[in-house]
């Protein structure tokens, strides 16, 4: 009876008219796993999550969430999942406590548990002293934790988070990921999408989706080693934007990483000098160049660009 998989989908497809937003996706998410669903803008991440949560109907394909069929048992699924949508969906004009009261009522949190669950949310979101403030007055990080709290008041075993950390400061993002790890530690399944590649390293397993299709999957380290046949050179230059353009014009794969430029090369040792020459010819000086282990972002850039 107890499935090994919290989410299992086969050939899941969603078409909007002629446009295929999600194209025959297969995936499996183990119970208790932090599952990262990555992809650039418009890849189909939100659309997939919405199909799994019963918000929209798939065009074709099959799937189960918590062992319940997405076509025939959406009501059962709703009892077993928490969902935090990409847009913060709290009632802004209501206070923190009123939001918590509302969602605990809507989720039918049993009477004897209500008090304890409400206290748990206040504590988890570290929002105790703001409980009578309207939500619209809260900072982004607090809102986001409160939204999570409200979405899981009913202690669902499976949690879907759609870009939970977008638009939130780095410290809040780190705090938020600690919460996600805690929940996974308690045996909950977390299905999370994100734009931030540095966050992807916190996931147990990842799926990369691009234009509605899965292009890679595995653990973060598997992705690094098996999809990355190239070496990465990290350049420190004065004008990283200009440098990136110049290198791209020269036919190289270059991307920005903070203040530095990453270039993927067949072999670092044989190409190092050539990069120096290209940039020097363009009048730029290299302040530093070194070989670095590929980040997930490098893997991602390589995979996506390979498809363009």
């Amino acid at each position, binding site marked *: 009876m107890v499935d090994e998989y919290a989410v299992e989908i086969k050939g899941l497809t969603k078409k909007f008219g002629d446009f295929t937003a999600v194209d025959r996706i297969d995936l499996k998410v183990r119970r208790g796993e932090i599952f990262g669903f990555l992809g650039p803008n418009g890849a189909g991440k939100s659309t997939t999550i*919405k199909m799994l*949560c*019963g*918000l*929209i*109907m798939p065009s074709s394909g099959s799937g189960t969430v918590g062992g319940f069929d997405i076509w025939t048992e959406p*009501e059962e699924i*709703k*009892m077993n*999942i*928490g*969902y935090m*949508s990409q*847009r*913060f*969906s*709290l*009632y*802004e*004009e*209501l206070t923190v406590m*009123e939001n918590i*009261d*509302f*969602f605990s*009522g*809507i*989720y*039918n949190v049993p009477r004897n548990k209500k008090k304890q669950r409400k206290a748990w949310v206040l504590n988890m979101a570290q929002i105790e002293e703001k409980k009578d403030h309207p939500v619209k007055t809260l900072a982004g990080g607090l809102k986001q934790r409160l939204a999570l709290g*409200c*979405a899981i008041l009913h202690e669902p075993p499976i949690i879907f988070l759609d870009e939970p950390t977008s638009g939130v400061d780095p410290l809040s993002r780190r705090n938020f990921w600690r919460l996600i790890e805690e929940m996974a530690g308690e045996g909950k399944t977390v299905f999370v999408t994100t734009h931030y590649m540095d966050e992807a390293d916190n996931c147990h397993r990842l799926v990369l989706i691009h234009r509605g299709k899965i292009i890679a999957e595995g653990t973060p380290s598997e992705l690094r080693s098996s999809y990355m046949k190239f070496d990465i050179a990290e350049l420190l230059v004065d004008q990283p934007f200009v440098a990136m353009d110049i290198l791209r014009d020269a036919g190289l794969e270059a991307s920005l990483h903070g203040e530095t430029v990453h270039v993927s090369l067949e072999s670092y040792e044989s190409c190092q000098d050539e990069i120096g020459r290209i940039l020097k010819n363009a009048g730029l000086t290299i302040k530093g160049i070194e070989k670095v282990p590929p980040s997930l972002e490098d893997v991602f850039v390589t995979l996506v660009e390979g498809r363009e």
Partner: protein
Amino acid sequence: MGERIRHLVIKEFIQLLRDRRMRAFLFIVPVIQVFVLGYAATFDVNSVSTVVIDFDRSSESREIIRRFTSSGYFSVKANLTEDREVIPLLDKGKTLCVIEIEKGFSERLRKGIPSEIQVLMDGTDSNTAMIATGYVHSVLKKYGSPKGGTDKSPFRTRIWYNPDLRSKNYMVPGVISLIVMLTSLIVTSMSIVREREVGTIEQLMVTPIKPVELIVGKTIPPALICFFDMILVTIVGLFWFNIPIRGSFLLLALCTAIYLLSTLGIGLFISTLAKTQQQAIMATFLFFQPAILLSGFATPIENMPQVFQYLTYLNPLRYFLVIVRGIFLKGNGFDILWTEMAMLFLLGFLIFTLSSVRFRKRLN
């Protein structure tokens, strides 16, 4: 089930009452409407601005002027003696009515020769002019008849307007029907469209809440507010405008409930059409305006072209207007109003069911 609806209703009330503009709309606008329609939009013609030119300057002519002044229908502004000053006043709209008493009026009256008074009336607003003319007639008739029993004046008086039927009595109960419709349309559609606009509807749809619960939870708050507004308007009507309520208040409440089926249904329907709150407001007024025109609120249905008369049968406002006016002014009971009530219920049932079906479809 009840628990989820209860929480939804509480949440809706918090949202409605915490919003200052919404509060004003819900509780102040109805009162303003009663006052505006009770005072301004009246068909009664009072204090017609009047200019008198008295060439006769006799006790008789002064008596006539006094009669005009004391009738309450005319406010006599100037007592001119020059003819040519008058036309500009009429042209500029400074005065509506000019009464001119010729020289020799009293002399002829004493001799028993028919005497004349010239009345000039600004006919731009034909309705007012007609009514004011009627008043002129009745004032002069009263002046003419007690003297010697026969009517010496050349005027033949017809009663154009029944001064006992104040149009306040007619308008104020009608306001209830407008307020209930406007409030339920706006509140129902806005609360749903706002959730869609902000994105909270998605959060609601992943909870175990059922569409029926959502519909009930979204329509109870506007329904309660409409009842409150109905009572508010009734109280203002009773105590401020001294409008009688001759029928049963309980019947009025029951009929309001039936009427709400239609209006909430239409609000629900608008919520399925509109993508933004602005669109919801626009759709509301696009519906509301013709609904008033085709209801008999201001103009009698019998005067409309045939096609429009048929259209009024689809208008819930039409039936409810007959009901409120019947209850307030005529003291009608169920025995007289049952056809309207039945039609209103049928219409409400259809509208609400269709809208609910559409609403459920729209959710997925």
